[in-house]
């Protein structure tokens, strides 16, 4: 038994030693400080974090969430972060609940780098609280060897109700995105709070569930489509552009009757313990190098004007990639607005849709 403890101890030491590798850098004003970043999974360039750490000799605690609501719950449950990257409507909510602190524009000097599409956003026109990180829309990714372009353009989002594709469909597991396609297909606004329209959309989704029995997934869909395991999926444009870049059979289509045009922005919570470093981080992300690494790795549309142009033009990684450059010219595209009562209702209905 003593032996057992000794060997266990050795094993523990080995693991600790393994874990302790790395971390060194030059000294700056921020040397030794810690930054808590809370971001989406698969949402950052390979070297962005490590380069930032090296450049400023700081440590970044990088945590992941998989939905805005999960992030919000964590925030409510007492966790303290310096940087969050929520979506538009969530930022709106955080602003309204006074949970954010303003961006320090004396530190964040790279705001000029922003692309036109993410400037002057109606929920935070002057970047008082938020600085765009990625942006894009939501659309249909389909396997052109199984589904024709004509069908997709004919059915638009109703393609998800075609029984012919039963068992080959991934549906994005989020009440907002799912109800968005139903609202759009029914010709309503995706911000509607009309009870009849909501019930109609609920019915629409239940029909969809019965018709194609989709898998309710989030990021799993990316690999499913890259590997051609599914024919049809609802994806964010950035994930779609990555899929398209990996699998030549895949196509992207955003229905002409409008879809969700979204922006994810970096914000600093009111209870952040290191807001100064958080501003430095935001400014760093806006640089060409960091934005390039981010966008190239992840496939989402950069908020940096120069990167966006470079990657989508000839020779760029996402040249001719239908999903990379979000359209800004369709007036029927909408942005979500914060409406907590509506969200709760949709959320409850969505649980029921999934339960069949």
């Amino acid at each position, binding site marked *: 038994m003593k032996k057992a403890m000794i060997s266990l101890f050795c094993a523990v030491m080995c693991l600790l030693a393994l874990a302790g590798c790395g971390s060194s850098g030059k000294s700056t004003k921020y040397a030794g400080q810690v930054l808590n970043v809370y971001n989406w999974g698969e949402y950052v360039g390979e070297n962005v974090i490590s380069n930032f750490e090296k450049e400023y000799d700081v440590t970044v605690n990088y945590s992941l969430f998989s*939905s805005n*609501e*999960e992030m*919000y*719950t964590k925030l*409510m449950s007492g966790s303290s972060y310096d940087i969050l990257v929520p979506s538009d409507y969530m930022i709106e909510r955080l602003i309204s609940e006074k949970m954010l602190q303003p961006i320090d524009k004396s530190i964040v000097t790279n705001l000029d780098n922003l692309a036109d599409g993410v400037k002057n956003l109606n929920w935070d026109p002057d970047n008082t609280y938020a600085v765009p990180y990625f942006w894009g829309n939501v659309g249909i990714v389909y396997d052109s060897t199984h589904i024709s372009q004509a069908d997709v353009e004919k059915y638009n989002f109703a393609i998800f109700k075609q029984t012919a594709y039963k068992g080959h469909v991934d549906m994005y*597991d989020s009440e907002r995105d799912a109800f968005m396609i139903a609202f759009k297909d029914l010709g309503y606004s995706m911000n509607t709070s009309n009870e009849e329209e909501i019930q109609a959309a609920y019915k629409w989704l239940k029909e969809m569930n019965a018709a194609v*029995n*989709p*898998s*309710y*997934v*989030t990021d*799993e869909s990316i690999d499913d489509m890259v590997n051609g*395991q599914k024919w049809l999926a609802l994806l964010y444009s950035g994930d779609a552009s990555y899929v398209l870049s990996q699998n030549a059979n895949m196509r992207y289509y955003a229905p002409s009757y409008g879809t969700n045009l979204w922006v994810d922005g970096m914000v600093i919570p009111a209870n952040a313990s290191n807001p100064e470093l958080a501003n430095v981080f935001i400014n760093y992300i806006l640089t060409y190098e960091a934005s390039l690494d981010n966008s190239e790795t992840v496939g989402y549309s950069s908020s940096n004007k120069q990167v966006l142009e470079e990657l989508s033009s000839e020779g760029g990684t996402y040249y001719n990639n239908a999903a990379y450059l979000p359209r800004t010219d369709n007036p029927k595209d909408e942005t979500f607005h914060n409406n907590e009562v509506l969200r*709760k209702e949709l*959320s*409850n209905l969505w*649980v*029921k849709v*999934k*339960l*069949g």
Partner: protein
Amino acid sequence: MKSFGRMAYPYMAWITVFIVIPMIMIMLYAFTVQGNETLIFHFTLANFARFLQDQTFLNVLWNSLRIAVITTLCCIIIGYPAAFLIAQQDERKQGIMILLITLPMWINMLVRTYAWRGIMLHFDLSSEFKIFVGMIYNFLPYMIIQIYTSLAKLDKNLITAAQDLGANPLQTFLKVTLPLSVPGIISGITLVFLPAVSSFFIPKLLGGGDYVLIGNLIETYFVTTGDWNFGSAISLIMAAIILISMYLTRKLDRQYQED
């Protein structure tokens, strides 16, 4: 010597703070609808009513119980012969086999489940089947170990005595070995059924998202929907079901041992 009794005081304080009060917190949330304002206590049964009156939620509960029961049965059916055969081996082999069976239990449950995800990508299987495989894989060792322990403890003279009194091997098994290993099966059941009912990452990792069990439901209401009151109510319902079934199993066990 009596003064040693005082050594339990610190832990009594600990369990009050970290077990009793947290359980009270869940109840507080479950019996209110005030959102995060726990200061104003409005007693209500609305959360329970909402769960119990909605067929879809009851379906989830029923499904969870069904899957847990089937998993437990499968574990007994697969595990009993394995435990029995291991107990027949010579002592050295028994030791090695038990080691081999316990070894995977030391590997992180998520890692083990993740392993199956890769394998099952090769096959076109239903979500339910994948979940069964994941559950049985994770919980079978507990069942085997429990049954094996009760079989190994069994006095070999009893078998000899049964045979001496004219029982054939099958009769010996049915009349002597099996009844005497029931306590092992019962503790195996508790070790399998309990985590199987409440498991939420096995369905999530293997079920492809379209399979919701009660554990997932609780997680959804806490993490995504943010309705902690309803989530707490579901937790209480699940805890009640489990504690009652544990209580019944124990009673059964005690009754059995008295007979």
